[in-house]
C-alpha cells in the first residue's frame, strides 16, 4: 500500500475529525415523509412506494458488494426468491401478506448462504460475478419451469396485501407499511455495519489475510454478509409482490440486475446513505423515460462509467463532504 507523505490532513481526514452530530437527526426524514400521501396523486404515490421497495434491495446488495467487497451478482436471485416466496405463501397457503415478509426474508437469507459457497472456496471477482449471475439466471429458469408453483412464464397473480387485518388496497396505505419496513431495515443494517461485524466486513474487503490475522473468522462473516444481504433483499421481494400484484419471471432478469447494480454504484459502495440515495435516483429516473426502451441501460451505463472515473466513492461521498452527519464512521463516540 502506498503511503503519501502526510504534511497536512487530507480532505477525508479533516472531515473525519469534525465531530459528527447525533444521528437522531435522521428521524426527521420519516417524520417529514408522513404527510406525503396527502400531496401525491396515486401514480406519484406508486413511484414513491417503488422507491421505498428498492431501498432494502439496494441495501442488501451493497452489504455484499460494497462492504464485504465481493462482486456477487446474485441479488436478483434473492429478490425473485423473496417475491415468489411471498406470492406462493399468499396464493397457495392463504397467508396474509404481512405474515410472508419474514419467510420471504428467510428464504432470501438461505439463498444468500448458498450464494456464498463459491466465495468461501476463494472464488472472486469476475468468476464470482459470473457464477452468481448464473445462479440468478438459473432461478429465473426455475420460475419459468416450475409452473404448478410459480405459474410459469405467465406468472402468478398475487392476492391483495394486508397488514394485520388492515387492507393495503391503496397506494397510500402501502406507503405507510413500506415506510415502517424500510425504517426497520435501515436501523438494523446500520447497527450491523457500525458494529464490529461491519468493521470486520470492511477489513475482509481491504485485506482478507490480515483480517484473519486479527482473529476475524472470515469464512463465517462472509456467510453472514451474504445471508444478511439475501435476507434484506428478500424482504424487498415481498414488498415487490405487494406492490405490483403480479409476478413474472421477466421482472428478475439481467436488466433488473443492472438497475440494482446502478443503485449501489451511483450511490456509493459500502455506504448505507449511498444505497438510499442511489435508489432514489435510479428508481425515479426511469419514470421520466418510460417510453424509451434501452435508455435506462444506456444512461446508467454511462453514469456508472463517469462515477468510476470521477467520483469513485459514489454520490454519498458528495453528501459526506457537504455535512459530517452523512459520513460513515465505524465506531461510536
Amino acid at each position, binding site marked *: 500500500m502506498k503511503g503519501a507523505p502526510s504534511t497536512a490532513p487530507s480532505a477525508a*481526514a479533516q472531515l473525519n475529525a469534525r465531530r459528527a452530530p447525533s444521528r437522531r437527526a435522521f428521524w426527521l426524514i420519516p417524520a417529514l415523509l408522513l404527510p406525503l400521501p396527502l400531496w401525491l396523486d396515486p401514480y406519484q404515490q406508486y413511484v414513491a412506494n417503488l422507491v421505498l421497495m428498492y431501498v432494502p434491495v439496494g441495501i442488501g446488495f451493497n452489504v455484499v458488494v460494497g462492504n464485504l467487497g465481493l462482486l456477487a451478482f446474485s441479488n436478483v436471485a434473492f429478490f425473485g426468491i423473496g417475491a415468489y416466496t411471498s406470492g406462493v405463501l399468499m396464493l397457495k397457503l392463504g397467508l396474509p401478506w404481512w405474515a410472508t415478509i419474514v419467510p420471504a426474508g428467510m428464504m432470501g437469507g438461505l439463498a444468500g448462504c448458498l450464494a456464498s459457497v463459491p466465495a468461501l472456496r476463494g472464488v472472486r471477482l469476475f468468476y464470482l460475478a459470473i457464477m452468481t449471475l448464473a445462479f440468478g439466471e438459473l432461478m429465473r429458469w426455475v420460475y419459468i419451469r416450475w409452473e404448478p408453483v410459480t405459474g410459469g412464464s405467465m406468472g402468478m397473480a398475487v392476492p391483495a396485501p394486508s397488514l394485520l387485518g388492515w387492507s393495503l388496497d391503496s397506494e397510500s396505505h402501502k406507503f405507510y407499511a413500506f415506510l415502517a419496513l424500510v425504517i426497520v431495515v435501515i436501523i438494523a443494517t446500520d447497527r450491523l455495519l457500525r*458494529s464490529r461485524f461491519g468493521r470486520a466486513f*470492511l477489513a475482509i474487503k481491504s*485485506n482478507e489475510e490480515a483480517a*484473519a490475522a486479527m482473529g476475524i473468522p472470515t469464512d463465517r462473516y462472509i456467510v453472514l454478509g451474504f445471508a444478511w444481504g439475501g435476507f434484506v433483499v428478500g424482504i424487498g421481494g415481498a414488498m415487490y409482490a405487494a406492490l405490483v400484484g403480479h409476478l413474472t419471471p421477466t421482472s428478475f432478469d439481467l436488466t433488473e440486475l443492472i438497475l440494482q447494480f446502478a443503485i449501489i454504484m451511483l450511490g456509493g459502495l459500502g455506504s448505507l446513505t449511498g444505497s438510499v440515495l442511489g435508489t432514489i435516483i435510479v428508481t425515479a429516473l426511469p419514470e421520466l423515460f418510460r417510453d424509451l426502451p434501452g435508455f435506462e441501460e444506456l444512461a446508467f451505463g454511462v453514469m456508472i462509467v463517469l462515477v468510476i472515473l470521477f467520483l469513485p466513492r459514489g454520490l454519498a461521498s458528495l453528501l459526506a463532504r457537504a455535512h459530517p452527519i452523512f459520513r460513515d464512521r465505524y465506531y*461510536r463516540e
Partner: protein
Amino acid sequence: MTPLLEIQDLTVRFGGLTAVDRVSFRVDAGEICALIGPNGAGKTTLFNAITGNAPMESGRVLFQGAEIQHLPAHDIAARGARRTFQNGGLFGHLTALENVLAGLHIEVKSSFLGLLFAGGAAKAEAAATKKARELLRLMELETIEDHPASELSGGQQRMVEIVRALATDPPLLLLDEPAVGLAPQMRERLGQIIRGLASERRIGVLLIEHAIELVMSISDRVIVLNYGRKVADGTPAEVRADKNVLEAYLGHA
C-alpha cells in the same frame, strides 16, 4: 519452562519447490528472536505457516504448549499470536483508529442477535474505542487516528500496524520487516519500542528483518535461514562469527 512458541521440523512445499525445510527453533516469553537470511530464504513463508496463512506440509507448531499447526489463521490469532505484514497489512478502507478497533475485534463483546435487538453494541464499542484511542496516544499517533489508512505515510502505517497487532496484549508478536522504509531515527525508536515490549510486557517477539544493525542491537537470539534451511541459531555475537552465515550471504551476492 514451556517455550512460548516452538517450531518442530516445519516444512513448506510449493509445487516442486521446498520453501521451508525442516526448520526447528523456539521463542520464549520476553525474548526477541530475529529471523534473517538472504532474499527468498523462506522467512515470510515460515511466518505464514506459523500464523496459518499458508499450508505446511509437515511439522509441528506449538504455541504455549498447544499444537496449532492445523488451526485456521483466525483461531491462531485469537489465541494470542499476532503479526504484521511485509507489504502493508493495514485495512485501507478503514481509518487508523478503525484499524486498531479491528485488531480488538475479539474483545468487543457484541453478538449478532444482541446487536439487532438489544439497542446495538454501544457500550462494547465505546469501551473498545477508548482503549484503541489510548493505544494510539501511547505511540503518539493520536493526531492521525481519523486518517484513512491508505493516506498515511509508510512509517505511520508501520506504527499503526504494530499498534493494531498489540491491541489485545498478545503474548506473541510476529513482525515481518517492520523497519522497511523507515528513517534511521524511526528505526531506533522502533527498536526501543520492541525492546520495551519484550522486557516490560514479557511479549515474545519473532521478527524478520534485513536491517542487520537493528537486528544485532535488539535481538536476544538470531536465527539464520538459507534456502529454507536453518543455518545458524544463537546470540548475535555467535551468529556474527559463524562461518556458515557468512557463506550464506556471500553465496547470494
